[in-house]
């Protein structure tokens, strides 16, 4: 095509594309908009959405697996051993619970919603729910405490554990003392060996 031809072609082609574009836009002007007016209308989120964490503290055996799996270290767990004379009950999977859990804090502001804490839990007590509207005005309110032991219960458990430990230590000491006594007592001389028949 000659230069003049290209010139005219450019002009008419660009005019045509402008008109086509404007036709598309005017069609969009009269289509229904797809905005969801959020606080009054909420969109449906999937069934298995990974949002805020929830811990069923009655099932927690205090194994610390979720806390170790967390990549941002947002779970803090403290445990107290229970003594054999106390029955803490069974978990939902019918295993015996052996640890008190006086402290189970999740700093939900740090949580990155990866779900890595959910898989290692032996009793499936930590789950991700579909709650996503939990903003707070004060950052301290974002540290969620799931443990439900009162201060008296915690001190009782600690004291019981201390007492049990002392008892065990005393028992061990008694056995050790008895063994030491036995080792230190004078030995009863053995009767002389019988002569050999040759004498």
């Amino acid at each position: 095509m000659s230069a003049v031809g290209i010139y005219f072609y450019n002009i008419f082609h660009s005019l045509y594309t402008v008109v086509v574009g404007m036709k598309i836009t005017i069609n969009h002007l009269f289509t229904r908009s797809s905005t969801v007016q959020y606080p009054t209308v909420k969109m449906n989120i999937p069934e298995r959405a990974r949002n805020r964490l929830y811990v069923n503290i009655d099932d927690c055996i205090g194994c610390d697996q979720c806390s170790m799996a967390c990549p941002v270290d947002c779970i803090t767990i403290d445990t107290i051993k229970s003594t054999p004379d106390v029955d803490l009950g069974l978990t939902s999977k019918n295993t015996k619970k052996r640890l008190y859990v006086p402290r189970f804090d999740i700093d939900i502001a740090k949580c990155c919603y990866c779900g890595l804490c959910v898989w290692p839990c032996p009793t499936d007590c930590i789950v991700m729910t579909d709650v996503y509207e939990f903003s707070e005005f004060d950052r301290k309110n974002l540290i969620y405490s799931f443990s439900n032991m009162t201060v008296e219960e915690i001190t009782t458990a600690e004291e019981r554990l201390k007492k049990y430990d002392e008892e065990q230590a005393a028992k061990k000491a008694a056995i050790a003392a008895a063994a030491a006594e036995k080792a230190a007592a004078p030995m009863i001389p053995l009767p002389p060996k019988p002569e050999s028949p040759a004498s």
Partner: protein
Amino acid sequence: MEFIQTLLANELVVSILLSLLPLVFIIVYALVVLYTEMKVAAHIQDRVAYMRTGWHGLLQPIADMLKLLQKEDIIPDKADKLLFRLAPIIAFVGTYAAYAVLPFSSIYIGSNINLGAFFLVAVGSLVVVGILMAGWASNNKWSLFGGVRSAAQMISYEIPTAIAIIIVVMITGSLNLQDVTKFQDGGIGNWVVFGGPLPWSQKLMLMPFTIITFFILFVSSVAEVNRTPFDLPEAESELVQGFNTEYSGMRFAMFYLSEYANLFTVSAVGVALFLGGWSSPFGTFMSGPVWGIFWFVAKAYIFVLIQIWVRWTLPRLRVDQLMYVSWKVLIPWLFVCLLSVGLILVL
């Protein structure tokens, strides 16, 4: 105009009042066009704009204006203080001066000078000065680029505007915008875009040329006011950079207001010259001094809507494409139209 003069019997006060009337119009109109642009832009993009300030966002333009009014006035340390302060004022003065010659109605025109159309092109250059000052005084490389490109763009698009105006003047015989509008009075057939009130044989020959001229006038005056798709000077990052970068608060509001006032000016000039200004398209039905204002504003508003529509359709032109369009496309076609219209009128 005369009856207000007899009412107050003091020429100075009357002149001041009448010259402030377009300012009132600009402020009211700016709120309306802000709302329109925001809603039309949103619906073109399949979304809704503000729904919470007032019913469906009706109070949003007022909120915008209040926000701009109470912003901190920051002047960069090394900026040229005098030019920095002067630039938005000059840009707005240039825009506002064009309202003096717009024929809003058969009884009201700010200043009935015999050089109306020429005056329009002249004060358009004042806006160029304002923008260049803004770009230079900001002491900012990108503002300078924006300002210089804007100056180049506006100067090169004034030529097609002026030639298109000359074509209309050839047909109507006067530069006075009020006379041009009166010339087209009497119904849609008399509009210049359809050839003017001339015998049918001449009209048929003139029509293709006047339609092309109207289209080119519209395009070149949109380009002169830095409106998409020609808004390279102010939109190198969508209004943050360009000559506007260092302006905040009230000074930015002046630039912003002058941009929206320019939208109306451009449409109004096109309407006054080609589409019969304040005259009703039905001849005598719905015509009269007050109806004149309605027709003028309605016709101009339709073209404002078209400008908003084009803004959200087309991408921006590169700076070399801008220059190409002006010098190699608009001006040659306008010269052809000029010669043809002259020939047809002479024969």
